[in-house]
């Protein structure tokens, strides 16, 4: 981890219909950090993400991604949306979806290099054999891996994943967390799955309208391997650690 700043969020408030969704958010994320964003549904996690991605504009405050406003920083960000349910019947192969990561405003076709990068991304996700599979025939987990491969194919400096393991079985989850651990770029992962805290994250952002930042969250597993998510979440929402 370096001390160079990847993401700077200053005094960000976001109102929707006069209703505050996020309030007074300040955060700095350093290059190479692995950040987990957790919090209750409707607490503003997705809104925070959309602000970072430049899909929404803050009502107040300022965001910089590697010194750029988010709307201009898209080329540096690899993004995986929450499981796409629609458009499953579109006639696309897995490789076509991953190649979307190579597209740009003035780029209208793909080079040999783009194909090589896309295939490499599929390799990393462990699904090179699915390259010419139509997306209509994928399982939920395979689809999610395809979308993560697409994010990696953008060769990002910042990887933003929204619930990357939601549709994936335990085995697949382990694989994806392992991959995230191996990457050295800045990573921001939104998860409703508290297990992510066990997966080598550097800091935890708990978002519930306001932001609570925690370092070294200790998750105490009792001998049966069970811990109470509710208690932990409440704890995270109380103190600024």
């Amino acid at each position: 981890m370096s001390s160079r700043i990847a993401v700077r969020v200053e005094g960000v408030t976001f109102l929707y219909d006069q209703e505050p969704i996020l309030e007074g958010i300040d955060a700095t994320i350093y290059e190479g950090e692995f950040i987990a964003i957790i919090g209750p549904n409707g607490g503003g996690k997705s809104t925070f993400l959309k602000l970072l991605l430049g899909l929404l504009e803050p009502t107040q405050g300022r965001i910089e991604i590697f010194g750029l406003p988010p709307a201009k920083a898209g080329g540096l960000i690899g993004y995986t949306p929450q499981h796409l349910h629609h458009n499953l019947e579109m006639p696309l192969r897995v490789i076509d979806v991953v190649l979307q990561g190579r597209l740009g405003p003035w780029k209208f076709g793909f080079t040999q290099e783009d194909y090589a990068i896309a295939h490499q991304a599929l390799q990393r996700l462990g699904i090179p054999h699915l390259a010419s599979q139509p997306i209509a025939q994928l399982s939920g987990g395979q689809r999610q891996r395809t979308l993560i491969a697409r994010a990696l194919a953008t060769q990002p400096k910042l990887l933003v994943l929204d619930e990357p393991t939601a549709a994936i079985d335990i085995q697949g989850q382990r694989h994806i967390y392992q991959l995230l651990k191996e990457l050295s770029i800045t990573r921001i992962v939104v998860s409703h799955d508290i297990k992510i805290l066990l997966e080598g994250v550097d800091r935890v952002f708990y978002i519930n309208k306001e932001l609570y930042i925690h370092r070294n969250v200790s998750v105490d597993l009792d001998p049966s391997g069970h811990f109470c998510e509710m208690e932990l979440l409440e704890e995270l929402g109380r103190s600024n650690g």
Partner: protein
Amino acid sequence: MGEFFLLFGDTIAAALLLSILIAIAGSLMLINRSSYIAAAIAHGSYGGVGLALYLGLPILLGVGLFALLLALLLALITYRFPQRAELIIGTIWAVGMGIGILLIHLSPGYGADLMTYLFGNILLVSREDLLLLALTDGILLLAIAIFRHHFITLAYDRDFAKIRGIWVEGTHTLLILLLALAIVASVRAVGLILVVALLSIPPFIAERMSKSFFQMVLLAALFSALFMLTGLWLSYRFDLPSSATIILTAGAGFILSLRKRP
């Protein structure tokens, strides 16, 4: 059969040119789920028929101007207010037709068959119509040659396209303009109402059998050529209205395609 081809040379040429138009515009329409927008442009453009008759302009010019205006308006509305879009689209659709009916009523001495503009007549296409169809095919081919990846990415995941720096509003508008162009070019041959069915059916059948967008467009062109030529032949053989036989052939193809689903 030979006589059929000799007698209807221009009509068959129109059918083949239309197949390319339908395949490209229809496939783009389908993957973007914008058939409602296409239908609104097609029906609303009836206002252009009225405008042309009222002002004594060529019909195609009236329809073209009206379709262009509606396309820009619809592009803006569906982009800016997606959650209210359906309601506004329905309004535009109805208001356009209302303007058409009113202006035609006010036009002096007009008695011709308005069904021609709603259903077209592929047997009456002129050389100019063929030229317009060929030109439109050329524009559509050029557009997907350049922008296909942008259109596809936009259709699949709009947020991702935006983050990649693609000009989403521009691409969205271009797509709707292309739909409007396709509709205007086919008014004389298939009419404002039939065109929406023809834009929908062949690409729909093709999509379910295709692995890629390219395949989808190719198959859609083959299906629309098949439906139109079969429909024309039935019309010739049994002396029936061609627009009806074409659309019923396409409808039959649609039902058959639903049956054999893997």
